[in-house]
């Protein structure tokens, strides 16, 4: 169906080869997963399939890409519209209509399909993706998962043979991600659709993939079954790390396989002492009966809680549950309808300038919002100047966080992980009492996530400060959080230790705990520590 023959790609004004001599044939009904570190060229590979690269982006392409016999050299992306459906990294940026129904119809209108065909297909897709109740809704009011489903639907209405998705679950909560992926799985099996997908969160998609294309960052690609590729790849989901750590000869890519392989380990008796660092007595954040209302809708309903030193709190919940509203009220940037928030005894809404910087560090969903300098160096110098600290301090923090960033790089040219690192070091340079992060792992690869985990744990433990983060990433929560607060519809529905909260809901349980259930282990290091203590 899709054929890459000797494909090499270089972007203009760049010396780095994005892809080198890729040969790959994807047959009908196959689901292929593209993995690699951020900035390694996953998106480029996906966009080569319908010719957006190089027709839209420029660049030198050697070799040939063809889909169903149509070479992208001869046919422009528009000419492939009936053959390939493509869903971009951020579907909201690609919507062209106001309502769900119109959006679904847009692609067919441009293909000039007759009205009765359009009506039939819109109904089909509405049913297939369970979008029927949303048909007249304005797209702007949909949640992330719903928008993703609409984007997939609007790609499917043209009855393409190939569906290409760039990080379809990165912005979604675990439940919405599951919905989207099971729909894809069904499409592959029922309609023999060919699906090519790029994703960082391997734990979510790996069990659905037939083959993996791994790009190593220098243009070298390897292609194989998930077991072959993940055996030695540095990019691997937690269960593969578990298999490696346990010294299993084979690796399993699904929880079911891994449970079979590890039944012997689960049968033994273990000393199940928890080792969470206990919080200090120092109440840093106090939330009392906090309510937040936007346009008459309640985002938070009378929420109360206290956060102490040494704690790393993960705020979880579905898209639209009020996570961002809570974080913004803690940071003092949203209007509070009633109740109060105090951070280190101060009202965050009244903080300004230096006092604000030393009290609260906030990393927004788009870390680049904080950046405006023309180079990494200018950003770091500005932070030094703002905080009246010896020049070079911020740069030093940055070098510890993400080594090897050239000081003259423009922040825009950094990878997602590097940009987060830069924003984080600017915020950390003022040494705030509280660090708040909104969805920090969106678009981060495993390496960058590991760095982030290390930094945050160090920050909280070293000086008795606290970290509050909102995230959908259960694996990240398992790695670092000491406490989890679960929001639903503006209420705190669960608040307790990470172990307690994560294990109580199967949808939010990390992979290791699913494999090791009923033993209460969340991460690979828990398992290893317990086994070592047993011996």
């Amino acid at each position, binding site marked *: 169906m899709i054929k890459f023959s000797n494909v090499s790609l270089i972007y203009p004004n760049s010396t780095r080869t994005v892809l080198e001599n890729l040969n790959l044939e994807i047959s009908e009904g196959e689901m292929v997963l593209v993995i690699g570190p951020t900035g390694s060229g996953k998106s480029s590979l996906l*966009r080569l399939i*319908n010719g*957006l690269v190089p027709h*839209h982006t420029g660049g030198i392409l050697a070799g040939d890409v063809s889909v169903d016999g149509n070479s992208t050299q001869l046919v*422009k*992306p*528009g*000419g*492939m*519209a*009936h053959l*390939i459906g*493509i869903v*971009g990294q*951020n579907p909201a*940026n*690609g*919507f*062209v*209509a*106001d309502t769900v*129904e*119109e959006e679904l*119809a*847009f*692609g*067919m*209108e*441009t*293909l*000039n*399909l*007759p*009205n009765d065909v*359009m009506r039939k297909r*819109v109904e089909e897709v509405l049913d297939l993706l369970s979008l029927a109740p949303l048909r007249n809704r*304005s797209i*702007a009011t949909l949640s992330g998962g719903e928008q993703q489903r609409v984007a997939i639907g*609007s*790609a499917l209405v*043209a009855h393409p043979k190939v569906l290409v998705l760039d990080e379809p679950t990165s912005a979604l909560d675990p439940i919405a991600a599951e919905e989207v992926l099971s729909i894809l799985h069904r499409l592959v099996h029922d309609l023999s659709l060919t699906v090519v997908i790029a994703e960082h969160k391997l734990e979510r998609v790996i069990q659905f993939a037939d083959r993996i294309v791994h790009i190593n960052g220098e243009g070298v690609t390897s292609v194989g079954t998930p077991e072959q590729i993940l055996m030695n790849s540095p990019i691997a989901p937690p269960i593969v790390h578990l298999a490696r750590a346990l010294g299993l000869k084979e690796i399993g890519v699904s929880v079911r396989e891994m449970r079979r392989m590890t039944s012997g380990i689960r049968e033994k008796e273990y000393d199940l002492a928890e080792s969470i660092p206990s919080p200090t007595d120092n109440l840093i954040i106090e939330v009392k009966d906090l309510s937040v209302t936007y346009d008459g809708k309640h985002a938070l309903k009378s929420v109360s809680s206290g956060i102490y030193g040494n704690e790393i709190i993960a705020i979880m919940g579905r898209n639209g549950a009020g996570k961002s509203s809570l974080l913004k009220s803690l*940071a003092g*940037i949203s209007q509070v309808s009633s109740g109060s928030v105090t951070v280190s005894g101060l009202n965050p809404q009244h903080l*300004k*300038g*230096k006092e*604000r*910087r030393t009290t609260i560090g*906030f990393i*927004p969903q*788009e870390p*680049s*919002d*904080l*950046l*405006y300098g023309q180079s990494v160096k200018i950003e770091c110098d500005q932070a030094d100047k*703002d905080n009246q600290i010896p020049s070079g301090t911020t740069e030093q923090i940055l070098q510890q966080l993400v080594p090897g960033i050239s000081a003259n790089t423009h922040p*825009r040219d950094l990878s997602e992980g590097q940009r987060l690192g830069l924003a984080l070091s*600017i915020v950390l340079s*003022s040494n705030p009492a509280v660090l708040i992060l909104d969805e920090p792992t969106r678009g981060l690869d495993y390496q960058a996530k590991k760095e982030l985990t290390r930094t945050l744990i160090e920050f909280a433990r070293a000086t008795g400060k606290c970290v509050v983060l909102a995230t959908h990433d259960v694996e990240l929560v398992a790695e670092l959080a000491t406490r989890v607060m679960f929001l639903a519809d503006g209420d705190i529905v669960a608040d307790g230790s990470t172990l307690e909260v994560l294990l109580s809901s199967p949808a939010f349980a990390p992979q290791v705990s699913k494999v090791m259930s009923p033993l209460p282990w969340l991460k690979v290091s828990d398992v290893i520590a317990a086994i070592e203590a047993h011996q």
Partner: protein
Amino acid sequence: MKKLSLHPLTWWIWAIGLAIAVIRCDSTIFTISCVGAVAVVVFVNRENAPWGKSFNWTLKLTAWILLVRTIIGVLIGVPIPGTKLFTVPILPLPNWMPGIRIGGTVTMERLSSAITEGVLICAIIVIFGAAASLTSPHRLLRVLPVYIYEFGISIVIATSVLPQLVSSVSRIRQAQKLRGQSLRGFASWRKVAIPLLEESLARSLDLAAAMDSRGYGVSKKRSRYRPIKWRTADSAVVCTALIVLGLS
């Protein structure tokens, strides 16, 4: 009150009619009352969507334009004799630039003519800003013929990306306030402008790529899933503009 659901071209035709009337009439009182009427229509009828909110920014922008235009109009140009208001120092110019002066005596007549001209320009901007904020750019795209393909893409990008930027501005300013930056004065705008520009470019490219890969502009004919019909209400709105045009 239920909001009218009109044909996407209606408000644009209405705006063109009013704009012509304002230019033809060239009376400040008429112009200002027109702007007032337009503002009322927008505040009553606009939707709670990014483009709906863009009207506030249009108003702010025009206030700035009016101010700057008046100051420049008073200071630079040909002097008009009349009642003397105050005098500012004259900037000496080389004698090969006759007839132009910078500074000097400011007369009542000079000031009023500068304001009149400024008001007219601003009125036109407000009227078209109103049409942009009353019409969903996406619906507008659907009624535009495909043969103006490049134009269509630019329209969608300009009208859907730019209003979204309005919300981005507040988001970015909020984030930078958190960095403890003071956001006063002109210099702070640079700090907002850079992330904003990047985001708008990225968004525009995404949208253009999405439209391209869905085959926009490939077939010169387009079918209609749910044709947008011209209704009586549309004719009524256009009629009001025509009546104003006729009276001017």
